[in-house]
């Protein structure tokens, strides 16, 4: 640390927090300066969220000290922290979805007139606030009717209106499109100029380098180091996070290994593709997507948020059946009307929202893993316990699922292990086609690599994979072909050497200049 550093706005020293027998934080220090964007990084379980929750009063620390503006502070509740100027915008946006934007922004400190809520003033001031932040959002709109990006903006606006000196953004871009990301950057820079300190948590290195000034790295609840980001290259940062030396890492950031842009052997043979969709459409979000997947192939699906990526997957899987167009599997028309139809035909689907649409939290790993395969494990209406156990053991070993036992509740596992169980749920049905929607979102780098390698291996063994991802590296390195969607339509198919981040971005945003280019380069 240089002696010339500006005075700290918020300082945390020796923060320790224990849950039961697990030490979540162990003597962590953090210093925030005025007007800086401070990245907080680390793998799952590193203690980022715990640190933030202590900072914003949601948790109480076991020991350690905290100073804000040079004064010792001690927050018992989020309310106290907010009053002192420390605010958080969480990853799952915590807003009231049935209430209006203005109500959300002013919740807890509504402007009043003679003791009663002054609606007019509340709406007016919210409008002014949003406009001041460069946002065009109706203060009377019900939050639930806004898209995720706008909800995120509302959450930030709330923090700003609270007069936040410290604003924590926890994975703010996880559900934003590159275009929306630039709006967020605008906002962050504007706040920075107003000398707000921003704690920025993200898994995406592009973002960190694009917007952050300094970085604090945590690992397993301990502070690894704090740096100026400019003096640290990506590889160094990954090494710090993983606690590995620079040499131990492979060149690529994904685990798909060698670029496998050469088409799979099967694709060259003149056999019908495994999956073919013909201009499938549903409502206003899905307006004509055609794509093909051959056995043994990983087909990437790229597109901005709202381009119909997830809708495509759900239509092929029958969860939200297409209203027009056709879905062919193995040359025969399928048009699944429910997941049952798709499953029976040999399709598996791992949803992007693991928590809401993937795991059954109270059930064990065993039950979660075999849920889709139950009809196959049933004889005379009874589930064969021995076959169940055998399958579960086989897949836990093969996928390297780390758990105390197959009877452990799935909600106790880490995100990466949960994702592996969900993959195994489909693999044990022996599917022909696997649809993966954001297979590596929100999981730590180690598990991410394992899953990517596994997908690669599966495809090599003949499975067709349709992989939706918002990580361009993943698409570029993993896919034999990439289908690019825009506004609910498939607009481009990239093959072989055509596949590059530049090309994908170009296709995603063809008529506009690739706005997110600086973020993605």
């Amino acid at each position, binding site marked *: 640390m240089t002696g010339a550093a500006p005075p700290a706005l918020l300082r945390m020293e020796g923060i320790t927090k224990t849950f039961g027998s697990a030490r979540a934080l162990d003597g962590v220090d953090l210093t925030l300066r005025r007007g800086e964007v401070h990245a907080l990084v680390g793998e799952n379980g590193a203690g980022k969220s715990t640190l933030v929750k202590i900072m914003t009063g949601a948790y109480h620390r076991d020991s350690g000290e905290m100073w804000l503006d040079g004064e010792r502070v001690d927050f018992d509740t989020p309310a106290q922290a907010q009053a002192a100027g420390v605010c958080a915008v969480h990853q799952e946006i915590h807003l009231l979805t049935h209430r209006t934007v203005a109500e959300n922004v002013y919740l807890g400190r509504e402007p009043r007139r003679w003791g009663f809520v002054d609606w007019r003033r509340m709406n007016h001031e919210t409008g002014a606030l949003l406009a001041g932040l460069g946002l065009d959002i109706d203060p009377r709109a019900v939050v639930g009717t806004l898209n995720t990006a706008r909800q995120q903006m509302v959450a930030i606006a709330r923090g700003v209106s609270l007069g936040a000196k410290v604003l924590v953004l926890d994975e703010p871009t996880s559900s934003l499109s590159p275009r929306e990301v630039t709006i967020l950057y605008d906002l962050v820079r504007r706040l920075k100029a107003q000398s707000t300190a921003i704690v920025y948590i993200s898994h995406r290195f592009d973002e960190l380098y694009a917007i952050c000034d300094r970085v604090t790295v945590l690992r397993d609840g301990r502070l690894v180091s704090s740096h100026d980001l400019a003096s640290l290259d990506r590889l160094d940062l990954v090494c710090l996070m993983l606690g590995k030396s620079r040499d131990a890492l492979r060149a690529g950031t994904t685990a798909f290994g060698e670029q496998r842009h050469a088409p799979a052997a099967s694709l060259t043979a003149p056999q019908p593709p495994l999956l073919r969709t013909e201009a499938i459409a549903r409502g206003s979000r899905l307006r004509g997507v055609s794509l093909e997947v051959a056995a043994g192939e990983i087909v990437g699906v790229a597109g901005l948020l709202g381009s119909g990526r997830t809708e495509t997957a759900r239509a092929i899987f029958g969860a939200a059946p297409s209203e027009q167009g056709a879905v062919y599997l193995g040359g025969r028309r399928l048009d699944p009307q429910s*997941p049952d139809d798709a499953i029976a035909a040999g399709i598996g689907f791992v949803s992007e929202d693991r928590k809401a*649409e993937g795991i*059954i939290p109270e*059930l064990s790993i065993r039950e979660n893993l075999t849920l889709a395969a139950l009809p196959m494990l049933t004889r005379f209406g009874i589930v064969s316990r021995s076959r169940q156990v055998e399958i579960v053991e086989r897949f836990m070993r093969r996928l390297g699922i780390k758990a105390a036992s197959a009877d452990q509740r799935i909600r106790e596992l880490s995100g990466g292990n949960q994702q592996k169980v969900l993959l195994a749920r489909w693999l044990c049905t022996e599917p022909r086609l696997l649809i993966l929607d954001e297979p590596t979102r929100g999981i730590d780098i180690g598990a991410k690599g394992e899953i990517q390698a596994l997908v690669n291996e599966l495809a090599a063994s003949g499975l067709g994979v349709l992989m939706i991802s918002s990580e361009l590296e993943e698409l570029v390195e993993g896919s034999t072909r990439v289908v690019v969607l825009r506004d609910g339509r498939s607009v481009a198919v990239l093959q072989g050497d055509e596949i590059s981040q530049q090309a994908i971005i170009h296709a995603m945003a063809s008529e506009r200049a690739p706005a997110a280019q600086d973020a993605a380069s």
Partner: protein
Amino acid sequence: MTGAAKPARVAAPPSPPAWRRLVPGPAYAAVAALGVLVALNALFTPNFATASNLWNVLLQVSTVVLVAVGMTLVISTGGIDLSVGSVMAIAGAVAAVLLDRGMAVALPAALIGGTLVGVLNGALVAALRVQPIVVTLATLIAGRGLAQVISHEGELVTIDHPGFALLGRGHLGPIPYQALIALASVAAGVFLLRATPFGRYVLAAGGNPAAARLAGVPVQRTIVSVYAASAFLASVAGLIVASRLGASDAAKIGQNMELDAIAAVVVGGTALSGGRATVLGTVVGALIMQVIATSFNMLLVPYSWSLALKAAIILLAVYLQRPKRV
């Protein structure tokens, strides 16, 4: 997902010892409470610890157990069934009215009639996604009226049929038939939940319906089946009560049964939020409530005291079994 409060890698809970798997879920508190209650009664209540009283308690608890097993299934899907009492009355009424055409007509008709109410409940909950508490509140009200309409416009229809009387009064050795029927329903419940796909589907539908649907679980069918099962078991209970009484008392059969059954379920350790179920726990819960009622009768304690104790037991049991905060 960043830096969760429960780092899985740091603290993977140890695998439970084998004996723990015998006692399902978090029902230890309930089992312990039952043990304490029985022990206290054996010491202080005259004639409590006798074989004949054992059969007596089993006899009385069996209808609640029947209904509560169904309720366990419903609650583990995250639902609730307030209509069980009225379904009991409907089944009793149908049987009473049709008995002069023979048991072969009356019994199936009663069971089907009662079960149809459950199918209606399930269909409304599953297909129209109306909240279970409202749907079954409506069928509770309408069902009670219907039962009275069926039994000749509210009359108390006397049943005089020796075969039918066996259902509620017959014995196999010292064991009452109805206790055997209840036992069968418990066994079926345990078996369904543990060994069949249906059981997994019930828990999956209760634990995370969206995920269950995407995993190919027939969620709607499962929910309809669960309400139908609850109504079917309630119908059986209704027939037993009618048989024991020798009359279909459409106004009173099954009154407040929903509360007794729900109490048994929650005391037994099944969470109202769904996704977890323990049929054996429910049996324990029902036994606790029954032992309180029986012993208070035997000790001739005023009614209001036993109510107060019941309330306390419900709270205490749920408090002890509440899931640890994460």
